[in-house]
């Protein structure tokens, strides 16, 4: 029982962490809540579904194409919606509202194209799970776990080692100083949206292997991503990672005591508690306190 609980928490936690990481990469550069990140996640799942079911491409290729197209979608949202607002230095609230607008528009566009019914991304016959002590883990869950951890490692290498990753960190720390030393902020914004959105797309494809696709799937996903980010401290990459897993554990722990419908309630209660008690998150420091 306990082993099963831990496995479920880790799998759902890794998805939350992927969403939160993508959200955080974008937040660090633009400093507002990119809510439409959730619909990029949905779109990623539907891109993979389209390639896999209608064009019959191999799944690995579908996965990469979905990430690529998610990145393109993220960039498009930035260019069409946020870019004009950045010119008049709109407040964070206004950008958040515009983001809601983009979210609502795209979610319903997906609903219009694919219909509101549940779709299934079926890789093949359901295989029997492996037993680890008393817990069961299915091959699909192992795939989810391995791919998410791989993506996290790649992200870490990208951020730490590549030139553009270093530039992204510089902008996150101090965008003015970064532009003084010759880092082009527009290029970094573009890179952040591409990278963050690709991660969202990947998370969307991975989750649709385990559950199903619906046009509204991105709503609860982005909420979980934001909650995970707030838990870890908004804008902190280790925070997003830890926050995702903490949220996964907290939700699974919660439904050990409460009926499973209360899952979303539990995570929102955690959000409200964090916002009121420690809005700068677990990994936030005194200086982050200034920003909330």
């Amino acid at each position, binding site marked *: 029982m306990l082993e099963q609980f831990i496995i479920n928490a880790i799998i759902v936690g890794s998805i939350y962490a992927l969403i939160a990481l993508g959200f955080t990469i974008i937040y660090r550069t633009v400093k507002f809540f990119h809510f439409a990140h959730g619909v990029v996640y949905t779109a990623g799942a539907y891109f993979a579904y389209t390639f896999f079911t209608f064009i019959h491409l191999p799944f690995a290729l579908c996965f990469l194409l979905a990430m690529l197209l998610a990145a393109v979608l993220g960039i498009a949202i930035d260019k069409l*919606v946020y870019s004009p607002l950045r010119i008049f230095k*709109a407040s*964070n*609230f206004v950008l958040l509202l515009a983001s809601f607008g983009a979210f609502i528009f795209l979610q*319903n*566009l997906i609903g219009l194209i694919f*219909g509101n019914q549940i779709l299934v991304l079926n890789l093949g016959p359901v295989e029997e799970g492996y037993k680890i002590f008393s817990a069961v883990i299915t091959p699909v869950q192992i795939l989810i776990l391995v791919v998410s951890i791989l993506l996290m490692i790649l992200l870490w290498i990208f951020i730490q080692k590549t030139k553009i990753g270093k530039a992204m960190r510089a902008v996150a720390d101090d965008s003015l100083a970064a532009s003084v030393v010759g880092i082009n902020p527009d290029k970094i914004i573009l890179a952040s949206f591409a990278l963050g959105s690709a991660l969202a797309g990947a998370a969307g494809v991975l989750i649709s292997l385990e559950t199903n696709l619906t046009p509204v799937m991105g709503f609860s996903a982005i909420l979980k991503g934001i909650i995970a980010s707030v838990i870890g401290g908004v804008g902190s990459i280790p925070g997003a990672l830890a926050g995702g897993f903490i949220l996964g554990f907290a939700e699974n722990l919660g439904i050990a005591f409460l009926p499973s419908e209360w899952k979303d309630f539990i995570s929102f209660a955690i959000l*409200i508690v964090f916002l009121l008690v420690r809005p700068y998150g677990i990994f936030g420091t005194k200086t982050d306190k200034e920003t909330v």
Partner: protein
Amino acid sequence: MVMEYVFHILVITGIYIILTLSLNLIVGYTGLPDLGHGAFFAIGAYASSLLAINFGISPWIGLITGAFIAALAGCAIGVSSLRLKGDYFALVTFGFAFLIYEMSLNLVSVTRGPMGLPGIPQFTIFSFSFDSVFSSAILISIFVLITIFIISRIVNSPFGRVLRSIREDEIASEALGKNVAKHKLLAFITGALFAGIAGSLYAHYITFIDPSSFTVMESILILLMVIFGGMGSIAGSLVGATVLVVFPEILRFLGMPSGIAAPTRQMIYGLLLIILIIKRPQGLMGKFKLG
């Protein structure tokens, strides 16, 4: 039949006007980023209905109680989180609206969850019952007029001028000796109170409520009405609520099947929100541009 339909739309428009005016007081006049106004609407509706169904309490007392509980909830949210910066406060209100929605959905023993609450009694005065759409339209119109009167008195009073000064420059208002925190809190509570009234009016008019009327999208829709009509404009709120209530009905007359009409309507809302923010942040009639 046609007249009944027209009067029904009139009633719904009236309820949204109350919601839009009360949110305009919070967002448009005071500049507080509220993304969860639907929560107070839901609280008013559920509180009033539950009192009437379970304890046989008069809808009028339910209305007052519902409004009071909504105001109390507004007070709790305001006291605890108005100190947070803009988007974090927006997140708290959004989270609160979601919690209220989840409670209406999952607290089945109290709210009957997705099955909803049927058989909510209608308003009565002595032996006269507001059970027709015509009498309800008159009742709602009276409440709309009262709301317009009170909100315009508030915003044109010295208190309202302080609210606008907070919106324009919080630090300057503080420097002039105004108690910014208290003013923000009072504006937020007043808005919540009126949303609670709207909730009770809605529940006792429609006689059946379920969680689907109180999703977080409802809060976004009310905010869209405020922005569309114009931030900080009473007339704007009237126009914003009316246009956005009537507009989906037109789509219905165009004969779109509901599977297409529903997402199309939402897509137009989303697009409208983006275009307004980028091209006309002051809305149709507002003087204040959304920062």
